[in-house]
């Protein structure tokens, strides 16, 4: 994983922790493969909140229909990278 990818994953982890008030996890220790729904118990409104902050952070638009794809931090990072690299 490149340093850039690692930075993005940690930043996304920070946002998830901040928005969902997951006080027991640090961004650096957050397992990027942890499943939001099955392992963290995150539901649709929590995810919607995270998505809105991610949109601001990375100046992208995330489609409603893509929410189910965003099951963990690694998938989010991949999704954002793809969005950033795809010309509008």
């Amino acid at each position, binding site marked *: 994983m490149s340093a850039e990818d690692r930075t993005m994953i940690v930043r996304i982890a920070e946002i998830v922790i901040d928005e969902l008030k997951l006080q027991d996890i640090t961004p650096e220790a957050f397992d990027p493969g942890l499943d939001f*729904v099955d392992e963290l*118990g995150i*539901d*649709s*409104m*929590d*995810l*919607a*909140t995270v*998505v*809105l*902050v991610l*949109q*601001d952070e990375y100046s992208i*638009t995330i*489609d*409603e*229909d893509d*929410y*189910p794809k965003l099951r963990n931090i690694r998938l989010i990072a991949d999704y954002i990278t793809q969005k950033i690299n795809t010309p*509008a």
Partner: protein
Amino acid sequence: MVNKDAIPAAGPNIKKWKFSELLADQDVKQKWEKVRRYFFLRESTYDMTNRCNIRCDGCYYYEGEKQFSPDNRHPESWRKLMQEEKKRGINYIVLAGAEPSLVPELLEVCYSEIPIGSIASNGSIRIPDSVRYRIHISVWGNEETTMRVRKARNLLQKQINNYEGDPRAVFVYTFTKENIDEVYEVMPTLVQHNCRITFNVFSSPEGYHGPLRHDEASLLKSRRVMLDLLRQYPDHIIFSWYSAVAHTSSTGLHSLFGCSYPRMNKSTDIGLGRSFRQYRSDLSWDRSIACCVPDTDCEDCRHYAAGSAVVTARLHRHVTDPDTFQSWLDYVDTYLAVWVMDYEKEKNLCNKLVAPPEKQNSLSEAFITPPRHNTLESGKFA
């Protein structure tokens, strides 16, 4: 004549608002923080018994197959069910059909296991104080109409006698095509007894084409009356301008927002499609027909229970501009006050009519909102 409830035509909204910009206003931020604390709620609904002490025209319970489910009256079976529900993450329960007040012992069991929830009741029998759920008491018109549609004499007076001053109680006035003006008779009585009221819109059961079913004109009239009453009785009515818009549009909730309940939502990835169940009185459930008010005609669904989840779930669509986002916040603030004990609604942030936003996708990346030229009279905005 100028109609003050008309939705003004809006020009293209070319500004792409950031979420953080929408939260810059302190009142908005405060309401957002207030409502988001309840995003942890995970609901399911339960028919408590197949019995009712009255029989209303257009009743949802006595449509479809569920009415033929036998009752499970064993408290320990219900306790076990509630414990299992907790294990799978359900922390909010709606106890409904046919008439939950007939089985208080089961309500007690449910409350002892899952203490956040609500009960839909006709209000003719008082539910014990120990069951500290929200209690929704259905009102369907004046005395004459209540006699005709519900075959119940002096029902409003009985409801008030049972629940006057009860912090659990919210009276739910259901607007049908026939009873719109009658709310002006009912409201002063409820207000005089310091009752709190919210509004519902009759949504036809499947196959129902009787006189209660709304048409476009009656929906628009209902909206106008709702807003008029909201202006008159702001301290007693739990409602918002956007609630009125969302529930009286010529298009039903599913077409407007996409229903999140399993019956209309095949996805089991996340949200209601994943966790929601609707149990019958024999404790069985069937995902394929599960929704908050089963056997409603989905195309005609404007039910307040459906909206609480369906509109709320579409947060994403409502972050387009300050008015739309504030309308959504008012809506969620309203739904929480109606459904959650001890949650108090604040003043509405947006006291104007805002059209429900259309779904955004990558094809509308520029977030250019189409002009909205819809008016109360035309009813074409939705």
